[in-house]
């Protein structure tokens, strides 16, 4: 306890049974890195700063956009276009100026992750893609860092704590015990394509903040060895007892050097051989002609594509083989570039005499 203000600020939690000044001291001495300052990261950061976690790291390379605001509650209209990590730190400083904020305004990669996480006691995964989730998991396993995990899809969420001994055998369960290998691109829906209820990351992120606070203070029973799931539509939550797989540790790179050699994007099937085109290439191709543009979103999806002549064939219909392609080159487009990539990969396998492309980033990029 430093000043009378410090005492007042945390008084409502220090009077809790089992918490006390000792608990507050543990939080103030804690160093927590939050990777991803998005839907999950925002509530985690707010509650950790409010509770007085001494050093808070914020890693995010993205900027704030209007479509973030329905769930990323730290940001306002004035922040649009500005870096999330810096904006988040600014808001948190206003909330609690007594803490140290470390801003990493960069993408977490195989090259920098070890250097970044080694300064922290606990890591929080609030990322939005499998390549980064597996990278964060593996780095935390290698560095023996507790990892508070959260993930969401539409109306459902998952929370767990990895790399903390659990159960009778004290096994350290991690993400590869649940899902040993990352899904390939297109296997799983993302937020831009499938949507997410704005309040859901608020609920799941609050669960995550709670796990961090319990880890640092030693209060209660954490979620290590357990996966908590929650459905916002039914309010049903389930606790799943996890198990150590025999092969999961072997799937993690054996050393820091081995981790730096891994290509996590490739393992998740991300960039594929020239099938994805950027907006500039897209516009040139359409101007030159002999290209059929096909919107693979569902028929009622908005915004409507108005600038170019196109066909509408939803992905499901397309993959049933009910379309005929008259042009030699086919460009698929969807909301985020994910379904169109699935379509292009499908076309490439099925029709050897045509060329298939996917607009990277989809309508959002235009």
């Amino acid at each position, binding site marked *: 306890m430093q000043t009378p203000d410090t005492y007042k600020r945390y008084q409502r939690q220090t009077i809790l049974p089992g918490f006390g000044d000792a608990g507050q001291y543990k939080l103030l001495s804690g160093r927590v890195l939050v990777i991803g300052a998005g839907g999950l990261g925002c509530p985690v950061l707010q509650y950790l700063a409010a509770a007085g976690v001494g050093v808070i790291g914020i890693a995010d390379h993205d900027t704030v956009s209007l479509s973030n605001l329905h769930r990323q509650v730290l940001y306002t209209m004035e922040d649009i276009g500005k870096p999330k990590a810096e904006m988040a730190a600014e808001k948190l400083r206003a909330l609690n100026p007594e803490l140290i904020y470390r801003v990493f305004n960069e993408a977490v990669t195989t090259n920098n992750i070890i250097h970044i996480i080694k300064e922290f006691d606990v890591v929080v995964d609030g990322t939005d893609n499998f390549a980064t989730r597996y990278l964060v998991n593996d780095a935390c396993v290698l560095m023996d860092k507790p990892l508070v995990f959260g993930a969401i*899809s539409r109306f459902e969420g998952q929370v767990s704590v990895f790399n903390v001994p659990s159960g009778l055998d004290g096994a350290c369960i991690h993400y590869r015990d*649940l899902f040993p290998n990352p899904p390939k691109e297109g296997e799983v829906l993302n937020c831009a394509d499938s949507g*997410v209820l704005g309040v859901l990351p608020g609920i799941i992120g609050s669960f995550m903040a709670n796990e961090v606070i319990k880890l640092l203070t030693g209060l209660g029973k954490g979620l290590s060895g357990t996966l908590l799931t929650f459905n916002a539509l039914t309010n049903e939550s389930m606790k799943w007892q996890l198990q150590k797989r025999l092969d999961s540790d072997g799937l993690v790179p054996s050393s820091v050097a081995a981790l730096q050699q891994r290509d996590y994007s490739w393992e998740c099937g991300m960039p594929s051989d020239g099938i994805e085109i950027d907006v500039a290439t897209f516009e040139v191709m359409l101007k030159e002609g002999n290209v059929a543009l096909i919107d693979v979103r569902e028929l009622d999806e908005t915004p409507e594509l108005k600038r170019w002549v196109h066909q509408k064939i939803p992905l499901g219909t397309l993959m049933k083989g009910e379309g005929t392609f008259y042009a030699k080159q086919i460009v698929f487009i969807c909301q985020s570039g994910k379904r169109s990539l699935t379509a292009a990969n499908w076309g490439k396998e099925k029709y050897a005499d045509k060329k298939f492309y996917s607009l990277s980033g989809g309508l959002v990029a235009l």
Partner: protein
Amino acid sequence: MEIILFGQLADIAGASAIRVEGMQDTNMLKAKLEAMFPGLEKVKYMLAVNKKMVQENLPLSGSEAIALMPPFSGG
């Protein structure tokens, strides 16, 4: 026995809960479900019996609660 499907697995099966009878073990159950819903074999999921994750083949009596959970990427 009742099988509860989470996330996009419910889209693949067309329902969030289904019933399948006569399954002797989890391998048989998985094969049956993947035959019923062809999209299922292409995606990753974790199988739980009575809220306990299962990795090896496990005998079933028919009274168990089964759940299938896919990975979520959103944040």
